[in-house]
């Protein structure tokens, strides 16, 4: 339907003719207020198949409609309204308006001059009307877009209220999160739920697609996860299985939700997790980043799914990074993908927390380039176990007497008990402490009962340091020969002399220093097990930096 607003005018003869001469002094505005014509507006809808439409579009100049023979409802309406002459306004072949005129006041026909004047008017008025129509149309569209944008802004605010307002702050942990929708609203979300026993559920999920449809499913999935978490506070796999059942009935067939659901015990660092098709979380330590693997189908695809539960221990200084695919699947202008190897490289050496998130954001921005149009929602969550502050865990003396190294070992083991040192590292530290204490008692203090060995145990951000001090600082350090079993068996070396070799082999670093009468050996043992594969070799190599007797 083409809607044409037509109008026509009829001169108010009496008024014009009887206008008093004095009125000539009146202001122009007043003259305009007293119209000399009667103008009637008519909303005329012309159906697309109405022959009048084609007729008027192709007419040149005004059209007399009295004798027009067309089967046209619009024409009937025009006639009924009193129009005799119709001036089509055509712009670029399109009928944009009509000026409909009633009979002349003189009751004569419209003259050729009148018609020419009208034709000229139409030629000038049509483009102006078209421009006005376009402006009006644009205004309407702008208003509609603004309304939509406003609604999306509100939707985003509402969605943000579905994200945690405050990050949890378990003792000794730092939790950080970043949420960056590709559009006003997002299908990504993260959540934290406080569970009984001080445990914390950590959730990152990603609904397929983005924008409003994804955001609607996100809101539903979040509620379902919260409900299921209450029912199954101990079992991430069961939570995902419950939510999968609920979503399967509700979600459109082409949509699904990937989700990583983990339960953290801040007291121990134990992180139990299940994964519904989400990116594998990364455990970031000083020297390595490992992926935490658990398998399961995305939520909402197939009913009856089961979800594998796995666990990992997060040591002091380590963190778990959970992220959505907007990060690893971002492309740079050359079409390369950000990818996990890059993430691994970035995350290595950073404990976690907001520092890691800032670094990843920066890396993503640099990688994607200045004109990046974000392809997908980007979400990161990190939970970092804070390294212990540098503090003295123990400081004690051991009398210099045979076998007293056992006492030193027991005390050091007790002091480091809360640091989460893996069992094998603890055993190695104990052996190193025993040997260094024996050296101190025997060679430093000559088993003199008045000269105790002083032992200090310090926790540093990612390691424990045991400093063992004797009073043999002024003695010259004997040159030691590296023990060689073949030489010993051949009688070329003493069967003994393994102490220093063992110390160097057991810990990550050995340093020796002499301060006046005191001689101190510092044993450094990292808390994490990351480089265990090469521990022995690395330990011996690192130890060459140190020294001792």
């Amino acid at each position, binding site marked *: 339907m083409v809607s044409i607003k037509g109008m026509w005018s009829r001169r108010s003869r009496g008024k014009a003719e009887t206008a008093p001469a004095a009125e000539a002094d009146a202001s122009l505005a007043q003259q305009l207020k007293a119209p000399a014509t009667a103008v009637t507006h008519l909303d005329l809808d012309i159906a697309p198949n109405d022959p009048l439409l084609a007729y008027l579009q192709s007419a040149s100049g005004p059209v007399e409609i009295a004798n027009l023979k067309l089967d046209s409802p619009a024409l009937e309406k025009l006639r009924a309204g009193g129009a005799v002459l119709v001036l089509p306004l055509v712009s670029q072949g399109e009928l944009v308006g009509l000026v409909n005129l009633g009979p002349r006041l003189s009751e004569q026909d419209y003259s050729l001059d009148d018609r020419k004047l009208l034709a000229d008017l139409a030629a000038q008025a049509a483009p102006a009307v078209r421009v006005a129509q376009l402006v009006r149309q644009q205004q309407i569209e702008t208003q509609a877009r603004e309304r939509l944008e406003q609604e999306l802004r509100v939707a985003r605010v509402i969605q943000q209220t579905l994200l945690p307002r405050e990050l949890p702050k378990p003792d000794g942990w730092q939790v950080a999160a970043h949420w960056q929708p590709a559009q006003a609203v997002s299908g990504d979300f993260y959540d934290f739920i406080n569970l009984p026993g001080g445990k914390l559920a950590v959730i990152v999920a990603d609904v397929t697609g983005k924008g409003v449809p994804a955001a609607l499913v996100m809101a539903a999935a979040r509620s379902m996860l919260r409900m299921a978490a209450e029912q199954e506070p101990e079992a991430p796999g069961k939570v995902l299985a419950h939510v999968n059942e609920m979503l399967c009935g509700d979600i459109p067939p082409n949509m699904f939700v990937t989700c990583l659901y983990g339960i953290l015990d801040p007291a121990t660092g134990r992180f139990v997790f299940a994964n519904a098709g989400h990116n594998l979380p990364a455990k970031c330590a000083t020297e390595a980043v490992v992926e935490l693997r658990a398998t399961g189908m995305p939520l909402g695809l197939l009913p009856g799914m089961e979800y594998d539960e796995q666990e990992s221990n997060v040591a002091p200084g380590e963190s778990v990074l959970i992220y959505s695919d907007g990060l690893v699947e971002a492309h740079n202008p050359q079409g390369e993908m950000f990818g996990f190897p890059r993430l691994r490289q970035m995350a290595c050496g950073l404990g976690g927390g907001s520092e890691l998130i800032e670094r990843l954001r920066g890396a993503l921005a640099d990688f994607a380039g200045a004109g990046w149009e974000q392809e997908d929602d980007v979400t990161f969550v990190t939970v970092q176990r804070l390294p212990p502050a540098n503090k003295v865990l123990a400081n004690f003396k051991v009398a210099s007497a045979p076998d007293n190294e056992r006492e030193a070992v027991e005390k050091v083991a007790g002091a480091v008990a809360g640091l989460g040192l893996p069992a094998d590292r603890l055993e*190695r530290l104990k052996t190193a402490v025993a040997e260094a204490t024996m050296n101190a008692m025997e060679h430093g203090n000559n088993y003199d009962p008045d000269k105790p060995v002083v032992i200090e145990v310090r926790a540093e951000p990612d390691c424990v340091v045991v400093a063992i001090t004797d009073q043999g600082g002024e003695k010259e350090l004997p040159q030691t020969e590296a023990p060689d079993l073949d030489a010993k068996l051949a009688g070329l070396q003493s069967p003994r002399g393994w102490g220093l070799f063992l110390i160097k082999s057991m810990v990550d670093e050995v340093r020796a220093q002499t301060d006046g009468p005191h001689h101190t050996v510092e044993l450094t043992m990292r808390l994490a097990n990351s480089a265990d594969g090469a521990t022995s070799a690395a330990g011996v190599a690192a130890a060459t930096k140190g020294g001792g007797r």
Partner: protein
Amino acid sequence: MAPNKITVDVRKPNPRVAVLDIKGDVTNQAEAALLDAYNKACDGGTKNVALNFTGLEYMNSSGIGLLVTMLIRAQRNGQKLLAYGLTDHYHQIFELTQLDKAIRICADEANALASAE
């Protein structure tokens, strides 16, 4: 601290093998107990001496020195030393010191008896 303690019992499950059941700490103080037991094990010309470390509580560098001394004697006597029952930690120490090259490490007693020449 409890005084350093060690007991070493000698068994001969078969004429070719003597087993030393080491219980307690292998340190400097273990010298007499360990070497006496070794001498006892040698009686009768036993070719293989298996060290049962299942009861080992602690071993230090002096203890390793004792094992080297025992190894030298065994080589002199044309005997073979075997060991079993080591924890992962002491197994690692055997590797680091290369004692595992000279003393055959076995999973358990049955394995040690089977490995005896």
